[in-house]
């Protein structure tokens, strides 16, 4: 199978600090990581490769230092890494990013053939939009399978796939045709530890880099800030919320605790009691 995995290098949000004086985000010295959501797709890709053979290619768009994340992905066991990097991409929103990445995918497909599956992270931890994957699928005409919790069956020969998808009120079992774009749900798997050969190969590998012209992007107005209709208006640190969690407990058993809990809820939400009683009277 030919599998592509799109990853993004993001600042480790757990280690970001807000400058106490200027109230701006201090990015300096903050370590970068592979967007954690992307790793669920990468692991699923590696499992499919282990089952069916073939190659896993990881792709990214970002500054030259993003090649570190691609190298890390090779260390997990991916076969090759491609980086799309160009100053014209600076300031890209999800529309511009999905455009650039889809061109990179097409470029890679010229050499390797069209992938059976493109995995993307469900969303990133620094943008949280969950739009880039679907954007790529739309541009490349791939089936979209988002929020997938498990892949039940794949038949690369027939070009079919069956997955479980987490929906609002349950689990959908979806069958689709390949090629497909899949975003995996967090917790659906756990990224493996690469072997000694994997990490050695990763450390020695060159990450292929392309610029905008290299992947055939001629109209630069579709890229970066110019190609991004979304504008960040303001970045700010959220203020501390005044609400506080309280623990309701009772020494005299479960039902007493439950009563205490209901009492505590109704105390803060007086209207709820009348609402509930009204509803109950309907039955």
């Amino acid at each position, binding site marked *: 199978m030919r599998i592509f995995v799109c990853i993004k290098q993001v600042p480790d949000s757990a280690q970001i*600090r807000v400058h*106490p004086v200027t109230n701006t985000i201090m990015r300096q*010295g903050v*370590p970068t990581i592979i967007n954690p959501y992307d790793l669920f797709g990468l692991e699923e890709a590696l499992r499919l490769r282990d089952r069916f053979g073939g190659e896993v290619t990881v792709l990214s768009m970002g500054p030259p230092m993003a090649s570190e994340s691609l190298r890390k992905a090779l260390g997990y066991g991916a076969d090759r890494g491609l980086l799309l990097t160009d100053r014209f991409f600076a300031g890209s929103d999800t529309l511009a990013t999905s455009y650039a990445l889809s061109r990179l995918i097409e470029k890679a497909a010229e050499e390797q053939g069209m992938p059976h599956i493109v995995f993307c992270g469900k969303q990133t931890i620094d943008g949280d939009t969950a739009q880039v994957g679907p954007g790529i699928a739309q541009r490349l005409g791939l089936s979209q399978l988002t929020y997938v919790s498990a892949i039940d069956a794949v038949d690369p020969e027939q070009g079919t796939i069956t997955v479980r998808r987490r929906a609002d009120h349950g689990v959908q079992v979806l069958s689709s045709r390949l090629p497909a774009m899949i975003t995996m749900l967090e917790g659906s798997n756990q990224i493996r530890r*690469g072997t*000694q050969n994997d990490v050695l190969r990763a450390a*020695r590998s060159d990450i292929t880099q392309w610029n905008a012209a290299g992947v055939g992007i001629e109209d630069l107005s579709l890229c970066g800030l110019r190609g991004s209709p979304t504008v960040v208006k303001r970045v700010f640190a959220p203020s501390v919320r005044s609400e506080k969690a309280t623990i309701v407990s009772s020494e005299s058993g479960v039902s007493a605790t439950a009563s205490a809990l209901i009492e505590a809820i109704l105390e803060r939400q007086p209207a709820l009691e009348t609402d509930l009683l009204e509803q109950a009277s309907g039955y």
Partner: protein
Amino acid sequence: MSNTTRFDAIVVGAGPSGNAAAYTMARAGLNVLQIERGEYAGSKNVQGAILYADALEQMIPDFREEAPLERHIVEQRIWMMDDKGHTGMHHRSDDYNEERPNRYTIIRAQFDKWFNRQVRDAGATVLYETTVTDLLRDAQGRVIGVQTDREGDGYYADVVVLAEGVNALVGQRSGLRPELRAEDVALAVKEMHFLPQETIESRFNITGGEGVVIEAMGTITEGMVGTAFLYTNRESISIGIGCLVSDLSRVGKCSPYQLLDRFKAHPSIRSLLEGSEMKEYAAHLIPEGGYRAIPELAGDGWIAVGDAGHFVNAVHREGSNLAMTTGRLAAETIIDLHRQGQRCTRQALGAYRKRLENSFVMKDMKKYKDVPRMLEKQGSTIMDLYPRLMNGAAQTWFRVDGRDKKAKENAIVKAAWHARGLGLLGDAVKLARAWR
């Protein structure tokens, strides 16, 4: 791109000594594999931290252009502290604002990452998040490679450089190193406190890239052998305290972080930290046993550098420079053997010891070889009594209270005599002997 797992040398660890060794060998054209357990070089490394330029300059003369340095040090304060204050010495000179400053404060997570980047650029292969678990040996017991915590058959090399730091787990597990003695290691804790650049500069009377270092000893360690420090970074202050592990367990009444909390609350320190925000907290062991604690440094197929070789000059608070220098000297020894087509046997690697003896490293280690023993015996006198006497004397001397000066002198002498008697003379002799 070759996929062989055979190298000229494997370096275990990417701290100052490992980076120096790997860098020097890679620059000389050796095929080097460096293995670091942290997510990146520096992610797990802890130090005060002061960088002494000379040791690095020997390898990378123009390091100042790129390396992430915080402040160059223009002022050194040495404080003897009692519970209420301190008496000490300040040394400051505009000479330190030279073109190539001699000492810098650094943040190790950033500096080590940079240094390691130079190692990679020099051509070494570096693996991260990989822990060396054991040494691989041939039938004769010669070290021929390492095994790691990743699945695989190991990595092989002519020589393994153990730059794994003070705990030296690989060395211990392989029986090359004795276990650490509690008398030979200090446990230090450190915090980084964020403060705006302007606040730091006005508070410490510095401008631009200037920095101040405070080293302190006294009642802050409760009579235990130890010291405390405060270093100015660009936008933060590193503050820490450390004591010998043997003293911590013997006294048993306070943990290092309690000592640090008390140090931070000390009247001489409190106002320097006011309004700061704690950014990170770290703890580290420091090998302070000195010359006598240096273990065997080389054997068939292996060599030890840096903290793994106990190279710390506790008196002068030097460590990272010894680490870099020992790493470089080990590398030069290996390069020579490599060029001569010789195997890295115990005997051949003996040249490393000779290089060390000829350098400041062993000369300094030897000079202070008796200090750890003296401190073991005289610890509480030096760490507690003398700082008290000194601060008491200073107060007697500086207060203007109607007493005549002769009476003040007598009072100072009497206080010292009362506290220590003839021991004063003995202490002076012991100190002089240990120092010479």
